């Protein structure tokens, strides 16, 4: 699975411009599915299985987009001012590298800060693509870029930019591969969603279109296992999580019980997750139409929204195992 993960995290797809990632996902899924659809906001929708008498239409969601930046102004000397797409902190910017959707590559530099120890604000940063004038700059106002950092395999631990949420995309692709050939009692609708980082927009419309009986997002979540971190009872290596709540959603308690019980019966490790800020596509799915029972499985992740997000490979594989268990058996919510 590491090869798949590497391809996904190294591709460029800031919110609103996910087509490269979408094409990659389609080719990776290949013949494991034959029902592909792209909707008005660019969501990739892959359907597997047929709903049996007691089966459900289950929507799974992992988002294809990553945080990034947009060029707002090219100055006379070819330096590019920018604004952010999704939650980008200036702390992770200075000295970083970006790749524009049109291929141009550059470095993030900054004005002289207010004091030697002050952090830059976004307005005080700029991108240098090596141009010397506005005319010879390959970037124009409105061009989108993502951060540029190669995948790093540390054995059990994997590091890359956009683990949020390409690691979940990888989990879903691998789940699709493993479900191939199995008798599934449900109609499974895998949604590789767009524009999550700017407000769960793709999932909002995809959920309306799919109209599921149950929704499950797969995303990353923070951890509390690094020095002097905020209180969080989730750690790398202790298993995927069953989300109880996050900044915008209370998971349906029946789904929480179903996920935890299934993991226990299958002897798979899992952790209970309470996240105080941040959210996932599940919050949007939950409010679609007349409401959808919704929950989320998270992959624990360190340094979220930095260019070096770190996950544990065992958590990822256990995440796949848990999903296969959940989706290939009858679902009883109580």
């Amino acid at each position, binding site marked *: 699975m590491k090869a798949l993960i590497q391809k996904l995290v190294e591709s460029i797809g800031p919110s609103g411009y996910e087509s490269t990632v979408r094409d990659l996902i389609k080719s990776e899924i290949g013949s494991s599915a034959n029902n592909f659809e792209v909707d008005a906001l660019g969501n990739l929708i892959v359907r597997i299985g047929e709903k049996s008498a007691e089966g459900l239409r289950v929507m799974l969601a992992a988002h294809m987009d990553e945080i990034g930046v947009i060029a707002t102004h090219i100055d006379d000397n070819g330096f590019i001012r920018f604004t952010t797409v999704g939650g980008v902190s200036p702390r992770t910017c200075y000295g970083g590298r970006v790749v524009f959707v049109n291929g141009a590559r550059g470095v993030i530099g900054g004005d002289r800060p207010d004091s030697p120890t002050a952090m830059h604000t976004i307005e005080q940063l700029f991108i240098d693509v090596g141009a010397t004038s506005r005319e010879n700059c390959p970037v124009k106002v409105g061009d989108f870029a993502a951060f540029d950092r190669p995948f790093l395999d540390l054995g059990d631990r994997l590091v890359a930019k956009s683990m949020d949420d390409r690691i979940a995309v990888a989990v879903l692709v691998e789940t699709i591969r493993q479900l191939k050939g199995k008798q599934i009692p449900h109609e499974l609708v895998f949604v590789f969603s767009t524009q999550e980082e700017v407000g769960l927009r793709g999932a909002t419309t995809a959920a309306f279109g799919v109209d599921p009986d149950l929704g499950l997002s797969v995303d990353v979540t923070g951890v509390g296992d690094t020095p002097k971190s*905020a209180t*969080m009872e989730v750690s790398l290596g202790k298993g995927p999580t069953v989300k109880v709540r996050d900044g915008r959603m*209370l998971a349906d308690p029946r789904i929480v019980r179903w996920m935890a019980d299934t993991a226990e019966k299958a002897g798979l490790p899992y952790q*209970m997750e*309470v996240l105080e800020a941040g959210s996932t596509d599940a919050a949007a799915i939950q409010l679609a139409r*007349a*409401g959808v029972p919704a929950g989320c499985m998270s992959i624990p992740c360190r340094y979220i929204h930095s260019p070096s997000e770190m996950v544990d490979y065992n958590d990822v594989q256990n995440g796949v195992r848990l999903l296969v268990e959940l989706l290939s058996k009858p679902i009883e919510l109580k």
Partner: protein
Amino acid sequence: MTDLSAFLKELISLPGLSGHEGSIREVIARTWQPLVDDLSTSRLGSLHGLRRGSGLDPRPRILLSAHMDAIGLMVTQVKDGFLRFTQIGGVDPRILPGQQVTVHGRQDLPGVVVQPPERLLPPGNGDKTVEMEHLFIDTGLVPADVARLVRTGDLVSFAQPPVELAGETLAGHSLDNRASVAAVTACLDELAKTRHAWDVWAVATSQEEVTLGGAFTSPFDIRPDLAVAIDVTFAKGPGANDHRTYPLGKGPTLGWGPNVHPALYKAFKELADQLDIPNSMEPMPLMSGTDAMGLQVVAEGIPTMVIGVPLRYMHTPVELVAMKDITRVGHLLAEFIARLEPDFVEKIRWDE
């Protein structure tokens, strides 16, 4: 005829935190059962009670929305037998130290929220508010038992029992918004003895305090022609005395602003005056902070009204409400519904 006071006291003795309303939904369902034709639960856990009207099919529909969920706390970490926690809904940390709570672990456990001694807190805190992240819950049990019985994600509710105070007032937690559930119940009681042409959907919504989830989803399948949100509003009291507050026990407030259809305000105002129900206009220049924010913009849009029950000390475990205001709201709603003619929606069309 429902004993409203007993019903309300039962409601505010149960948890039913946002997203986990099961326990309270059961009690409301049991009470509404004899008053409605159909009871059902939405996919988000809201309770829908339908009273069919006597008019000809297809009958217009009115939806009454009162959220049943309550604010509370959730365990984030079990540490050395102490529980760290976060909030569900808006909880002012200043009301927490010394507060008695119930921890809903593998079994229900009594506990108390404790403020650590100053020397154990970040230096320089002085006598400033201690933030929630530094408070603990102590169950009085030994760490081994706590680890066995409680885990991350468990809910914690306020344990304050209902207290009857002078002047026919009632104090307790989650009167926001169970007072309004009682008002809707009072309305259903009256409708049981009245003819009404319209279908009435009584909805105890879920998750208002965190996502307005019930308000955004319940109307989608019901598609009411009118919707009324009943919620609590700010009663005058210590520390709350300006133009945004209303006298306790002097009748409900009627909302006015973009979240309210002006013709509905006028209709309710005229009726309240006619029935000698004291009332105040509650200007809401922006949004109402109630289920109406969701109800109004579902699908093709719904004309909405907001009715407020004045309440002191909102979002504390000692919220205070006047029983008289609750019965007034129930009566106003029932009279409004009884007089609804099938063509009312045509009459309130915006100038065309």
